């Protein structure tokens, strides 16, 4: 399972696919002060990205992946209105 939902933290590992979008959205809606650990994430599906953006949850551990770190992290860091 590429995304492991723990108590307060969602741990992204490997290539996270579109199937995770609904569970992720549900978890984010339910969890209190959710934390995101993208450390092990190597690919993030667009659907997951937009869920994260819409939720505006803070990223606790930024991704190691160069592409994600350089181009995706900056938007994730920004809190949507």
């Amino acid at each position, binding site marked *: 399972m590429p995304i492991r939902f723990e108590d307060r933290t969602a741990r992204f590992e490997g290539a996270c696919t*579109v199937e995770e*979008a609904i569970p992720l*959205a549900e978890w*984010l*809606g339910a969890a209190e002060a959710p934390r995101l650990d993208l450390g092990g994430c190597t690919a*993030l*599906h*667009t659907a*997951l*990205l937009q869920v994260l953006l819409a939720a505006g949850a803070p990223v606790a551990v930024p991704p190691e992946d160069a592409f994600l770190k350089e181009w995706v992290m900056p938007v994730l860091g920004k809190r949507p209105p």
Partner: protein
Amino acid sequence: MNTLFDQFVLESRELLEAAGAALLRLERDPADRVAVNDLFRALHTLKGATALFDMAPFTRMVHAGEDALMAVRDGQAAMTGDLADRLLDLLDTGAAWVDGLEDSQALPGDADARAQALEARLRAALGGPAESVEAGTPSAFAWVEEVPEAERAKAAGRTVTAIAYDPAEDCFFSGDDPLDLCRRIPDLLFLRVEAAAAWPPLAQLDPYRCALRFRALSGASKEDLARLFRGVPDQVTFATLAIPARAEPAAPASLATAMLREQAHILGLPGSAEETAARRAAVLRAVRNILTAEGRDAEQAVLDRAAEGPAEALVRCVESLADGPAAEADTPANAASPARRALRVDAERMDRLMALVGELVVAKGSLPYLAREAQDGRSAEALAQGIKEAHGRIDSIVGELQDAVLRLRVLPLSRVFDPLPRLVRDTARRLGKAVELHLSGGETEADKDILDILGEPLLHLVRNGLDHGVEAPERRRAAGKPEVAAIRVRAFQDGGGVVVEVSDDGAGIDADAVRRKAVARGAVTAEQAAALSDAEALRLIFLPGVSTSDSVSDLSGRGVGMDAVRGAVEQAGGRVEVASTPGAGTRVRLVLPLTMMVTRLVTVETAGTLYGFPVTLVTGMQRVPHGAIRRMKHAESVVVQDEVVPLLRLRRLLNLPEDERERKGEAVLLVDLGGHPVGLVVDAFRERADVVLKPMTGLLARLRGYAGTAVLGDGRLLLALNLRELL
């Protein structure tokens, strides 16, 4: 200028030439795959080379050419004459820029505008929509202006492709992952992920409807990207943009500047006269070294001048040197110098030269030995023998060395043929004539100087042939000739020289028209003209002001051309021949010596002095009995091979006293002066000589009757005469 840049200048010239040649091939045969690929490769390499330096307009222009070719290669556009015109335009602009770069290391100020204009015209020629890229940033790509400075800096000075990717809402259902697609953009310079609309509360978000859009910059070409995004062509738009280079902050003072300033400072230090003098010498040495290291040898002269003056002048001079190389305005000579062409030399020829130098070093070794022998009192006979042997060895090596050096300068004539296909194509197109150019003998070799001289006349002759020789298609049809005219340029070696022949199958030259023209221009009188044979009348076209055509076109026909051709060729020690058959065509032959460094002269003796004439001018030598010389008042003539040849006496031409000696006949040198045979009476014939002709310099340069001087093997001085000036 650094070596990388030098290399770029040389290489881009070659690439532009190669591209031009390939383009002409392609135009002739649009299905020529090899030509497309050659052209494509040349442009691609050139683009890569320009990208190494800060010259975005250049890169951009070449890129546009590449785009156009891509369309041709993929069968989306046809190779039309128009498109070829524009591509040639592009290559010409490129060549002009390279020349400019070599001089000033910068593109001209209007480079960007020109690149854009060319790009637009190429696109128009392709028949494609005049796309977005022309001026500034199109509105769909306004975001490019907002790219943060850090990312912008990476793209500065480059031509990039801007990508606006607005994925369809339902794209996830067709298996797209837009972010992953963006990840695969080659040479990604910038990516911005943005929400297509304001985010709804998370609970109302449908994760399966894509609500993101992407904006990216990439260094890859539009085509590469189009391939990447081929699955979603309706959701993505591209634009090719040149990101302007940021204005560079003023370059920090170079090390050389700092060092020179320091030297100026040292000069100003107080001290005793002796100390100052020593310091001055040391500073001069240091400054010279700095200038040499900086490649500013030209400025040594300024320094030398200042060094002779008072100390303050020298300080000022060193300070001004510290401010940087002399401004360009100070050296106008630079700008005027023709494009520098590298001389490519076969490694084999270089090796031969090295081997000969080695032999020479060995041969030299025998001389100290001989000197010791002489000191030890060896017999004069044995010494003479030794010296003769040493001389023999050195002589043969020097002979070979000379030959080897000459060979270094020998190049194939194809170099001067190179511009011809383009010239013929452009001119024929403009004149609306169909012409096929046949080149042969491009592998014939001649000295570099000869090639340099040959270039212009050859262009002129071919242009002349196209303009006056070749008839309009309807006239050719009427005359029963094939519609496509042929212009042949042929080179071959003949005797001691190179012959370049330009012939056409056009209308030929009407000798009567030339006669009329020459009379009208006052070049000859009506009687003289009438007395000329047709072949002689044709030669009149070489007189200043006589043209072969009645109409003055923008190409030729102003009557300056053939005269200039003759001038250039004769200056190189050659001659021009013309033959024409009305209705069948014209043939012009340029006969040139193989090399200019060593000139072969026929030497003659007159009034105790040796004079030389280029072998190429001399057609014969004869002993003429007195009885065979006809006199008409003061004019003398002689019949040679059924032709009346005017006879001139060298003594009279040179204002020397008459030869009073008793003799049976006259020694007559037959000379061809541009088609006018002339007999020249001299005292005696001497041997032929290969000499290195030195032009007259200083005050003597004004004596136009002399072509130069040469020292013969026995130490005697030889005067080479310029007969045309003497007559």
